[in-house]
């Protein structure tokens, strides 16, 4: 695999900052809004957004994690059953505005499962989608993001990875392209 950096840590911080201000434009003081990160990789993104928003606004924002394993549409189409992560939503989302958060938007199937899973916690008034990377082509469902960190055009054989300093040691977005011999 050939590795290419799409966003380095400086650009990464700028993008994160811009997304926060875009959210504030639409959600004001977040009194009616909750943020929900999709397990597993959306949670790290959620934590960053939450910390940055709270330092800008100066008050706490309601957040939760949502696991979508049991709502996926590819159960029994994979080799192994998927093992779930933790769901932690200790509030009711009835009549709230929800911002769903994930790191990469690609086929749209994860988001569809997320919408389904979310409804077990109530009927929100609005739902928006925030993703760090939008892989524009190869969408399999009619799902689009409301806030996008970076749009990239990729081939199906390529892979995009968002890395976080807390886990991988450095904030960056990488594109992996298979070399010809692979």
């Amino acid at each position: 695999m050939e590795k290419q950096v799409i966003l380095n840590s400086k650009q990464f911080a700028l993008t994160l900052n811009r997304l926060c201000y875009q959210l504030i434009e639409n959600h004001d003081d977040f009194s009616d809004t909750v943020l929900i990160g999709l397990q597993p990789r959306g949670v790290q993104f959620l934590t960053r957004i939450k910390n940055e928003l709270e330092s800008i606004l100066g008050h706490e924002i309601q957040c939760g994690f949502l696991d979508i394993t049991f709502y996926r549409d590819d159960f029994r189409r994979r080799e192994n059953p998927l093992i779930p992560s933790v769901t932690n939503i200790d509030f009711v989302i009835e009549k709230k505005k929800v911002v769903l958060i994930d790191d990469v938007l690609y086929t749209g199937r994860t988001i569809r499962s997320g919408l389904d899973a979310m409804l077990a916690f109530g009927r929100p008034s609005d739902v928006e989608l925030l993703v760090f990377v939008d892989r524009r082509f190869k969408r399999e469902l009619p799902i689009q993001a409301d806030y996008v960190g970076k749009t990239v055009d990729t081939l199906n054989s390529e892979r995009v990875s968002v890395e976080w300093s807390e886990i991988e040691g450095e904030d960056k977005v990488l594109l992996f392209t298979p070399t010809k011999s692979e």
Partner: protein
Amino acid sequence: MNNLSVEHLIGIKDLTKEDIELIFQTADSFKDVINRPIKKVPSLRDITIANLFFENSTRTRLSFELAEKRLSADVVNFSSASSSVKKGETLVDTVNNILAMKVDMVVMRHPNPGAAKFLSERVNATIINAGDGTHEHPTQALLDAYSIREKLGGVEGKKIVIVGDILHSRVALSNIFCLQKLGAEVMVCGPTTLIPKYIKELGVKVSHNLREALEWCDVANMLRIQLERQDIKYFPSLREYTMLFGLDKEMLNSLNKEILVMHPGPINRGIEITSDVADSKQSIILDQVENGVAVRMAAIYLLAGKIER
């Protein structure tokens, strides 16, 4: 590891420690699901499950049915009392006829030991044993161990005593296998006639004195005397059994430590356990029932994942 090593759930004996831990880890998530306002997930939308009960059951049957419905599986129920079994149909014929209606998984309780294994070798469906005679009752053992893990933070190194009719109990055998695989120490306690002769071969301690057993343990699992399986008299009278092996509040309070009290149900109040013990805060009998649904959901989910499309 994120897959079971078995295709069917016949007995705990066939499972590895990793299998059991995987089931527990998955059950944690399902326990969260069944405590939500909407207690249902769509995972098993395309799976049909038949519950075949050739022997009476309340808890296990309801628990399996709820677990299946909360996974969105389609469920058909069958009980031998109202079926053609009475007209002389064999087990394999009965099950094959049900499978001809396109059923993917069979949950079966049967009075004959080995019935689940027999079936798994002859029909083309995933089999879950919900109790086969005096042999095994794997999901009960899983939910018992899961409840201990939940209350005491783990099973490894814990001391569990199983009290009562060990000879006729499938719960006892499955519990012994399950707890030992998870690293617990197991003791059985009961009248000499109700303890199988070679049970020490399984590596369990044996006691015939309830107080001694309770002083030793962290958890006491009190079993019911299975009069329906006892073809001869194994002890002089139920009253004598209660005097020697029944757990009452006085005994519980006089112990040098606080132990957990479990019971797989159905309880015969006043025989193996008195009402005040069954309803005390040390009793986790109803937690066991709640965990039963989550653990069965996990087992069904993981086994269903192995069914080919």
